[in-house]
């Protein structure tokens, strides 16, 4: 196949770039190594839209964070992605930390962050009554918010495909050869030709750049571990609550999620293995201890799950975005660690403008910016539910009893553009299996539905692609 642009990596950055490019007449392919979008850093991070005061003045991080945070609310509305502008606090527990808060305030102003203010103790406790009484003051950033990162990615990929982008999953790039008008990508699903490449391969973007002889990118995999708590504990924080940052990152935060759960984390540990997303007893213990400093009432009885993700930390400390020094047809989008999610809409905008100028492509008139709103039975009124079931009986059959997810919603997730192919894919798109029983009851029904809809036996259905099969052979 021959394309104008191949985007390597379907994380939030790659998917939003592919969607942005689908506004043009360029023929775009989005390549993903795993069985689904959002499988790397995108699915395991803090799910935060940062104000933009943290990054050093004049960096790409600062510029794109502020712009991304500005673009995020409208983007989420257009794509029907849960987003909440809940604001964030950076707590100070000493006068020394208070000086740091003031420094962040000044930095924020220089970065162009609107609606920042410094609060005293009583103002903090009024906003967040469950915060530790040892707090001295805090920085309030009113433009900060929370978003569901994998849903944003799913929506962006879905919308990109609807606008003509080809999405190829289970397609790992193994080598890149220069061709007269671009490149030939050797992949696990055959050779693909492309005039331009966008390298959005996350933690592996240094490896992809090296395939064209560009060894300028140096990334460190920095592991972050998290606990997710039941919705019953969501009341403990309304804002996203940070502590003063340190050299390894922004420290441990306590935040509500868009679904009403409470998320605490991350730890920060540099690891050698870029696939190592194991949680560790030490890391999880660290997260709990640090988080309790902010919100002492936290307790693990409410823990639903724990997980770990890897941030692609660039040794330069700033995002690496631009044409490679080895080729002006190869765009690196690398080192997208925090505030990468916040910046992602702005990164997509930047790459879009770079390629538009370079290729002289024209904008399409028939671009559809939005996607169809996904059906959410659990949020509907009685009348809406009645009308829905009257139209399609599948919405009358509840599959996930904890989260009230119907068969109709699961069918939608499978048959959507760039739809779900595995159990975790269904879970991320619908919440089936995300509740109290964690798929204990609905897991086998989801396997059954996937098997029926995809036309493969139940023992070929996986949890998340590859060899993550759930069942072996038939019983005797």
């Amino acid at each position, binding site marked *: 196949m021959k394309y104008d642009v191949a985007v390597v990596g379907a994380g939030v950055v790659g998917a939003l770039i592919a969607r942005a490019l689908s506004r043009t007449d360029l023929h775009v392919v989005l390549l993903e190594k795993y069985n689904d979008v959002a499988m790397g850093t995108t699915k395991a991070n803090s799910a935060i839209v940062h104000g933009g005061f943290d990054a050093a003045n004049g960096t790409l991080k600062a510029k794109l964070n502020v712009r991304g945070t500005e673009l995020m609310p409208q983007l989420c509305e257009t794509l029907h992605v849960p987003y909440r502008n809940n604001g964030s606090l950076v707590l100070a527990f000493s006068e020394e930390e208070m000086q740091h808060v003031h420094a962040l305030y000044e930095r924020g102003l220089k970065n162009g962050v609107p609606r920042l203010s410094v609060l005293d103790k009583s103002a903090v406790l009024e906003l967040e009554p469950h915060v530790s009484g040892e707090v001295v003051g805090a920085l309030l950033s009113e433009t900060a918010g929370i978003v569901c990162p994998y849903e944003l990615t799913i929506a962006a990929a879905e919308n990109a495909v609807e606008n003509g982008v080809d999405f190829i999953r289970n397609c790992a790039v193994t080598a890149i050869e220069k061709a007269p008008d671009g490149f030939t990508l050797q992949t696990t699903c055959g050779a693909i030709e492309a005039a331009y490449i966008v390298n959005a391969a996350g933690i592996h973007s240094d490896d992809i750049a090296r395939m064209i002889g560009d060894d300028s990118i140096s990334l460190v995999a920095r592991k972050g571990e998290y606990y997710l708590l039941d919705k019953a504990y969501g009341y403990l924080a309304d804002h996203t609550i940070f502590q003063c940052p340190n050299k390894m990152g922004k420290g441990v935060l306590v935040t509500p999620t868009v679904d009403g759960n409470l998320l605490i984390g991350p730890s920060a540990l540099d690891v050698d293995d870029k696939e190592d997303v194991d949680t560790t*007893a030490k890391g999880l213990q660290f997260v709990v201890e640090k988080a309790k400093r902010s919100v002492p009432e936290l307790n*693990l009885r409410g823990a*639903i799950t724990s997980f770990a993700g890897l941030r692609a930390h660039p040794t330069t400390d700033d995002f690496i975005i631009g044409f490679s020094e080895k080729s002006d047809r190869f765009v690196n989008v690398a080192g997208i660690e925090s505030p990468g999610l916040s910046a992602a809409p702005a990164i997509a905008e930047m790459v879009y403008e770079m390629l538009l100028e370079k290729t002289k492509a024209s904008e399409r008139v028939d671009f559809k910016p939005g996607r169809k709103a996904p059906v959410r039975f659990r949020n509907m009124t009685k009348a809406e*539910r009645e009308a829905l079931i009257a139209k399609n009986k599948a919405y*009358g059959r509840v599959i996930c009893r904890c989260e009230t997810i119907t068969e109709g919603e699961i069918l939608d997730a499978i048959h959507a553009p760039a739809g779900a192919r595995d159990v975790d894919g269904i879970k991320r798109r619908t919440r089936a299996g995300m509740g109290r029983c964690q798929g204990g*009851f609905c897991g086998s029904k989801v396997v059954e539905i996937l098997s029926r809809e995809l036309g493969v036996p139940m023992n070929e259905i996986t949890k998340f692609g590859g060899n*993550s099969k*759930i*069942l072996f052979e038939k*019983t005797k």
Partner: protein
Amino acid sequence: MLQYDLVVVGGGPAGMAAALQAHEDGVEKILVLERADTLGGILEQCIHTGFGLHYFGEELSGPEYAARFSEALYKTNIDVKVDTMVLDISADNVVTAVNNFDGLLTVKAAAVVLAMGCRERPRGALSIAGSRASGIMTAGTAQKYVNIDGYMPGKTVVILGSGDIGLIMARRMTLEGAKVKAVCELMPYSGGLTRNIVQCLEDFGIPLRLSCTVIQTHGKERLEGVTVANVDEHLQPIPGTEEYIPCDTLMLSVGLIPENELSKSAGVALDPVTNGLVVDEYRETSKKGVFACGNVLQVHDLVDYVTEESKLAGAGAAKFIRGEKPAGGTVTTVGENGVRYVVPQRINRATDKDVKLYFRVGRVLENVTLTVTCGEETLISRKKRKMTPGEMEYVTLKASVLEKLPEDAKLVVSTKEA
């Protein structure tokens, strides 16, 4: 809106027995709502025997035990809707449910029996470090894959927790050709029935490792192994005792939790110890006309006791519908000194029959005296050779004793070591 005398939420053994008893006691319009596609509940996947020894005096498989009730039920005029999920029970007993043949259903009920059963405690609640590989599942989920879907969920298995489902699955997987390498139990005693330890582990040479837990899972895609370690008296892993066991499957049998989300939305009071409901001797909850029975009320180990309890709930609902059920229940019960809880929590002094007090102990007790006292007075005293947390116990309180108690009597079920 449909009108029924009695709506039973859940068509497992509890719901079926309650509905049948209410029918026998003359209730005319009864509706049973079941979320699965057949009646029978979790018994449908329990194809092993051992059911019915107490109630029928014979040994049945789970589906056979369930069929005794579902066959009887389908011979009556009780209405049954399967594949139907109850979404809400309102303050005035309007039950909202959904299915793919009626759409949304609203039913006004004079009385409601809650019989939703329980769910298994999942992995997340345990915070085991390691990967999120496939092959980690609760024992009940594995049981459904083997017995209903007909697929093997694993070949080499470690089981964490020695609850009854885990023990049963150790045997089941072995019979299907899998190798069960160990059953690890955090506590110094098993949470399952003694007969299951003998018949499911000892008879097959499967090691039961007490005071032992899984501290890490390994494998990026499918599980490749687990690290287990012994724990100290504070249940913390002891450094130096770690052992790697290669396996492709980790099954969890680490506790059952009554499914009371609907009850909470209906405003019914819960017991913080059982996570079940607070009930009187007819299993009426804190809400008038709302009854509960089976695992939603307290987790049982024998279905025979579920049946007994559910018949009480059905009879109570029938009395309530006829306007004959005394309200209140001013005598309260409490467990002390090793007795974790007592069900029922409230009793009407003027009740018309003997009342069985069900309870569980919190640790293994040997050679103790079990007593039921009211103030200074000892009402019942029994010598017990051994009581374990895995086996539900009961004592019977005579109606003639109850009626002589003071109105606000507090009954204490307690143990004393000899």
